[in-house]
């Protein structure tokens, strides 16, 4: 419960490390300690630019500050993601919150403690090394203690961070590494006001938007006279093809929206791809090549290794984020200033986009993040904030709440892009992978704001802004090429990303971006190579890995699953997969057991075992919760999901037309083993499971019924067709995505 400093003061240690070293985490962009931490008579307040999205980040950040400040977590108040109060940490995305904000807060807290000890040493006329920080006070050997709040003035922590921090000893953690109960859960189970949907500022009115029937539709005419006479209706807002209505009460707004939709006449144009030929079309869309990696002789002629060469193509359709709570925002335009409450992942980028949309200077726009339903990437959150802004500008002085309807979210959110990967691999005589060629094709995986044109409602305004030109996300993180490079040691290798600019369907960042399909493809193909070479798929992986942490998660998952001693019952099978997210973040291995009903192709996932190493584990149960959730969500994507459309319209408009995982589909057991690495950097957790879960599932299905499905989702229809040789042959000839193994 205490910290004692060694003979060499921490500041002296830092000086010795050199002043030019980079500041850790987000201290690099917000170096002042009081940007992160304030201590006064009211207590300790920690500030983060990262948003709670249901991942439990608030609890973990509080644990970090509590550890380094030697206080209990309950002594800390956290303020998150508010452009008027917190540091600018960009987006809460990419499993980066612990690396960015966690690292900054931990270091800032350690440096603040050091400053407090220094001040106390002078006051107490004691050597600093003899003082200890504990429970919110500095304590001298003679028992005298001074509370932190008595040691600081307004300016005490208004100093720049230094590169090195006197961080606590990883061997003596007190709060970190413990499964502290999440601070946000009690309010959620008690029905307290937690979510943005629960905010009710005085004078608030309810708005709904009448969306166009398709992406490029234009409003020809609308007769709103009858709508304006409906009970509670305050205003109809029309701007170009943008159409909305505001009313006193929420259900009045819904009734008015329905009436307004009936009164609107639209002109439709444009066309969507033919869904049944999506992947053939995608293979031909204009593209530009982004080289990912090339080494050895993979550019040369094939077949020189004397072994077997396999080829395969893997696919996934468009996927929805599918938040259970549709997007929502509240905006108030008052005396020339705009305040927007939003569940956006990035309040600062959104502020700039809304400033451009409204024509206000950015300093007159404030965005405050309030929790929404889980988003899993770029969903409708920013667009709803734009809706609320557009309508609030027409109703000054009144807080305007826009709640998206279910169909708004299903039809208008930006989807995770459809993807296609082609791979060719060669085994040498010893059964090792000698050569690997891989090409993945997809749209961009981020159309986040950006400017106002990234906000979908702006596309329909009179002064209309079209979608912004897409760009690939640079490596090493990558977008469509995220995890396109296998972590395995392969001498001759070539990996390319076919980046496709045209976006017939709206797309953006969905949890794990391209890693879902790339890991599905790589880890499915590894399994196919293992079968071809008659070697155990885990042995094949381990033989090609040099990183002991990768091998550790693989061995842990395999042992806990009982991989070696597994006895296969008829119709059952086991599958395995591994990836290191982005090849630089968390390591995760998963083993899955399934049963497949041979009569109808239905898959039941029976059991999942995963092992994860995300560096030092601040809250192990929080990591388990995220990984369990990631696995189940990836199983949902991979078993059931694909956005449906005709040549003009998205047709997945609700949960009946876009089915997802239900309770009946949930495995009997999901075990997650967290390999804690005290003292190691945080690697992030949220997206690590998506790819491995998908691949382990497909590998288990292949093991169970000897058919290899290379197109997601693994629907019962697809599996049944693949199990029926005649149908499989005709399907295989058509799209090459299913084959017997």
């Amino acid at each position, binding site marked *: 419960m205490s910290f004692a400093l060694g003979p060499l003061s921490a500041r002296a240690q830092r000086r010795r490390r050199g002043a030019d070293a980079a500041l850790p985490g987000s201290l690099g962009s917000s170096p002042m300690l009081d940007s992160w931490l304030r201590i006064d008579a009211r207590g300790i307040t920690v500030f983060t630019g990262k948003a709670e999205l249901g991942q439990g980040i608030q609890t973990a950040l509080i644990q970090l500050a509590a550890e380094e400040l030697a206080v209990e977590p309950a002594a800390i108040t956290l303020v998150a993601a508010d452009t008027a109060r917190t540091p600018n940490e960009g987006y809460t995305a990419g499993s980066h919150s612990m690396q960015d904000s966690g690292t900054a807060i931990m270091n800032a807290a350690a440096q603040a403690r050091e400053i407090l000890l220094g001040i106390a040493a002078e006051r107490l006329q004691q050597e600093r090394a003899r003082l200890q920080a504990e429970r919110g006070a500095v304590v001298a050997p003679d028992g005298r203690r001074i509370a932190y709040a008595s040691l600081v003035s307004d300016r005490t922590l208004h100093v720049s961070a230094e590169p090195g921090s006197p961080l606590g000893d990883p061997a003596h953690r007190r709060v970190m590494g413990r499964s502290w109960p999440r601070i*946000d859960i009690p309010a959620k189970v008690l029905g307290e006001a937690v979510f943005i949907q629960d905010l009710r500022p005085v004078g608030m009115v309810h708005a709904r938007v009448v969306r166009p029937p398709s992406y490029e539709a234009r409003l020809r005419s609308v007769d709103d006279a009858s709508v304006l006479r409906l009970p509670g209706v305050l205003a109809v807002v029309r701007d170009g093809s943008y159409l909305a209505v505001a009313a006193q009460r929420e259900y009045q707004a819904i009734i008015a929206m329905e009436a307004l939709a009936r009164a609107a006449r639209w002109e439709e144009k444009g066309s969507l791809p033919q869904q049944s030929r999506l992947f053939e079309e995608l293979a031909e869309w204009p593209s530009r090549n982004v080289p990912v990696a090339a080494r050895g002789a993979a550019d040369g002629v094939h077949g020189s290794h004397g072994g077997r060469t396999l080829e395969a193509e893997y696919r996934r359709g468009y996927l929805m984020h599918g938040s*259970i709570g*549709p997007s929502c925002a509240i905006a108030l335009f008052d005396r020339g200033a705009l305040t927007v409450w939003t569940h956006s992942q990035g309040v600062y980028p959104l502020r700039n986009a809304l400033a451009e949309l409204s024509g206000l200077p950015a300093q007159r726009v404030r965005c405050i993040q309030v929790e929404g339903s889980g988003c899993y990437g770029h969903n409708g959150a920013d667009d709803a904030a734009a809706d609320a802004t557009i309508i609030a500008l027409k109703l000054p002085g009144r807080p305007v709440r826009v709640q998206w309807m279910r169909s708004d979210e299903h039809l208008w959110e930006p989807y995770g892009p459809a993807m296609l990967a082609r791979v060719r691999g060669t085994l040498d005589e010893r059964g090792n992978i000698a050569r690997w060629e891989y090409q993945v094709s997809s749209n961009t995986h981020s159309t986040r704001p950006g400017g106002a044109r990234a906000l979908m409602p702006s596309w329909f305004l009179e002064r209309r802004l079209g979608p912004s030109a897409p760009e690939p996300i640079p490596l090493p993180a990558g977008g469509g090429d995220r995890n396109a490079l296998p972590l395995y040691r392969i001498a001759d290798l070539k990996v390319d990303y076919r980046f496709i600019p045209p976006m017939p369907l709206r797309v953006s960042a969905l949890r794990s971006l391209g890693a879902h399909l790339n890991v599905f493809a790589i880890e499915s193909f590894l399994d196919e190579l293992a079968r071809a070479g008659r070697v155990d798929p885990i042995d094949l992986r381990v033989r090609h890995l040099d990183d002991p942490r990768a091998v550790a998660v693989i061995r842990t998952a395999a042992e806990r699953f009982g991989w070696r001693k597994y006895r296969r019952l008829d119709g059952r099978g086991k599958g395995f997969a591994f990836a290191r997210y982005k090849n630089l973040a968390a390591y995760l291995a998963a083993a899955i057991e399934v049963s497949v009903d041979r009569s109808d192709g239905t898959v039941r996932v029976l059991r999942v075992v995963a092992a994860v190493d995300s560096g030092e584990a601040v809250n192990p149960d929080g990591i388990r*919760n995220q990984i369990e*959730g990631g696995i189940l969500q990836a199983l949902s994507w991979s078993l059931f999901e694909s956005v449906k459309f005709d040549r003009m319209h998205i047709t997945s408009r609700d*949960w009946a037309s876009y089915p997802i995982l239900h309770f009946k589909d949930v495995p009997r057991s999901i075990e997650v083993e967290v390999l804690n690495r005290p003292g190691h950097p945080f690697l992030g957790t949220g997206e690590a499971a998506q790819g491995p879960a998908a691949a382990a599932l497909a590998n288990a299905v292949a093991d169970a019924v000897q058919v290899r499905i290379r197109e997601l989702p693994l629907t019962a229809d697809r599996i049944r067709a693949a199990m029926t040789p005649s149908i499989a042959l005709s399907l295989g000839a058509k799209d090459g995505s299913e084959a017997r193994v």
Partner: protein
Amino acid sequence: MISLLVNGRAVEVDDDPGTPLLYVLRGTLQLNGAKFGCGLGQCGACTVMVDDAAVFSCQTPIADIAGRRVTTVEGLGTRQHPGVMQQAFIDEQAAQCGYCIAGMIMRAQALVGRSASPTDDEIRAALEPNLCRCGTHSRILNAVRRAVRARQAAKADAASSVGARGG
């Protein structure tokens, strides 16, 4: 005006009789538990109890339930005294974003009201109408099992203390 009995409190509301209960709970009565998810009866985020049954409040016009007992998650407990089901969800850390959780709790509460010792299959079947997107399902199932055990233990305690007095 329509009279409703919400969490044991009699209230009069002036909303249109065709208004679904969800909007009256959230708007007129300013309760947060029932959530808007789809407005179609497809996701269960809006689940509350009417008398002893779990219903989609987004599909239930207030005219249909005048005078009947409505229970929302707020009616199950407080910070100081969470309900058994609420405490079980806290103990199992059975939430990620938490948006679906109040609906899950109400669906489970209706189940344990009609069945003292539901099997695993019965728990799954009861929760089937409710969707969770974060993938918290296995923790939700664990929380319901825990609540069932807690209720059984409480009953056994009560029975044995009655027995002790009797002896």
